[in-house]
């Protein structure tokens, strides 16, 4: 379990992280979301012991980062931003180096090597120089180095940058797989990536926490009502108004009728889904549905509204 408590970090006069608090439990995959410069990487760097907090503290399994930095580092596998690697080493040597620092003996290393080579798909490059590998391979080498000691916690700073769509899917599956038993924190500014992978999202802006929750929760909290666009033929305005009596959860936002069809916009609580009822009602009333589409608020809208709100608050 990781607990970040009132964490602040300043670089000279610039306050990168301001009194940030959150908790992450074991077996959770958490997405750390924020615009560039929001303080994501700084927070992760403090959590891994690369930087010291200006104030506040980080607890990992109740060990605090000031007194137990090395114990915490032993539990963590970290893939830094931009994935820096020793390019003049062979992939095997690099993994061996990480294993040795982690205190693994040869036998232990051999099984771990088989595991990460399989999981990260490195069998083709294991005897190559790191510098000669493609960007996608380098990313996977970085990931393999971070998980060679089978850590309880994986902290991945933008793990999928530079990968092609197929590799992204592979890495995403791998992270999901790992997240079943480990605590995974991954940062990204690619919203689809976060949405597809994580259980819980933490959005920060200007170094402050602006939202926390699952992507559905965030979307629900950002906008209370979902909209449904309907295009109907054979429906009268009165008939549509009557429908409301049968499906009380919807309210009618607008009706535009022309000669052939009616364009209707309905609104309802995000948590309810009355589409089936509407369909059944339309069939019963002998209306034909030409189009029915639910316009969902996506995470992108949530993100934009939250981060821009923060900017205005600061101005």
């Amino acid at each position, binding site marked *: 379990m990781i607990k970040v408590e009132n964490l602040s970090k300043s670089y000279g006069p610039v306050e990168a992280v301001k009194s940030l608090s959150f908790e992450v439990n074991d077996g959770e995959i958490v997405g750390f979301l924020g615009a560039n410069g929001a303080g994501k990487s700084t927070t992760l760097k403090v959590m*891994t012991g*690369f930087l*010291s907090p200006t104030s506040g503290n980080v607890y990992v399994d109740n060990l605090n980062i000031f007194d137990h930095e*090395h114990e915490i580092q032993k539990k963590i596998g*970290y893939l830094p931003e931009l994935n820096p690697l*020793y390019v*003049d*080493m062979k992939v095997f040597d690099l993994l061996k*180096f990480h294993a040795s620092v982690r205190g693994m003996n040869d036998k232990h290393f051999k099984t771990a090597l088989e595991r990460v080579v399989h999981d990260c798909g490195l069998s083709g490059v294991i005897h190559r120089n790191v510098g000669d590998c493609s960007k996608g391979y380098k990313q996977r080498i970085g990931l393999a180095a971070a998980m060679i000691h089978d850590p309880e916690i994986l902290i991945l700073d933008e793990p999928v940058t530079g990968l092609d769509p197929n590799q992204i899917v592979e890495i995403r599956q791998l992270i999901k797989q790992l997240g079943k038993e480990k605590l995974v924190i991954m940062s990204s500014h690619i919203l689809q990536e976060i949405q597809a992978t994580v259980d819980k999202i933490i959005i920060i802006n200007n170094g402050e926490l602006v939202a926390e929750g699952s992507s559905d929760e965030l979307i629900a909290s950002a906008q209370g009502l979902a909209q449904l666009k309907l295009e109907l033929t054979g429906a009268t305005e009165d008939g549509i108004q009557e429908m409301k009596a049968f499906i009380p959860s919807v309210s009618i936002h607008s009706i535009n009728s022309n000669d052939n069809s009616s364009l209707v916009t309905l609104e309802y609580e995000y948590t309810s889904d009355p589409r089936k009822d509407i369909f059944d009602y339309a069939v019963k009333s002998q209306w034909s549905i030409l189009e029915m589409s639910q316009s969902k608020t996506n995470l992108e809208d949530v993100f934009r509204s939250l981060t821009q709100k923060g900017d205005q608050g600061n101005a």
Partner: protein
Amino acid sequence: MHNTLVIFKKELKSFFNSPMAYIFLVIFALVTGYFFTNTFFLYNQSDMRALFSIVPLVYLFFIPAVTMSLIAKEKSVGTIETISTLPIQDRDVVLGKFLAGYSLIIIGLMVTVIHYITLAFVGTNVDHGAVLSGYFGLILLGGVYSAVGIFSSSLTENSVVAFIIGVFIVLIFFLLDKTLIFVPDAFAGFVQYLSVDFHLSNISRGVIDTRNLVYFGSVIGFFLFLTTRIVESRKWG
């Protein structure tokens, strides 16, 4: 200790994985060999004084070149973040890297033993003790310069800048006792004590005094300590 060794092995291996080590060893052997044999036959004496006077000069440039990227490169590539977030003490990293650079310097010095072997075969009345203490002095000198080199490498992320700073500091140590005539008498003893040449000349004469050993040990320790503090200072950046 284990981690120091892991870092040491990794660094030494990366020296020999790149052309760096070979270029250093070959050029070092050529340069010292040239200057040694050049004057050796003029003196017509079976000693290695010519070598022992040229190596400190060659070290002035070679050691900062070997050590310049030890930490600077980690900073510029970003791997400093990888290595600092592994469960290793910063002092183990610094010590391991220092020992790796230092070992390469010692390996280079050992190449010149070939001159000694030649001398032992063809020379007469070779003073083996003087040769031995001469080498001992150069090994200690290499340690001081390597410690200065890794220190300057920790100051910047640019290897070239690290090299220039390294040469500058090493030059100060080298020149200190040549400035003695400009120094007021009250400080002369102190300045002389700081000068590396003063201690080196004692050892080269065959006088191995603990005062000199303490000097070399503490200068090396001092610079490694400073380097560790600088590496740690990233945390509060």
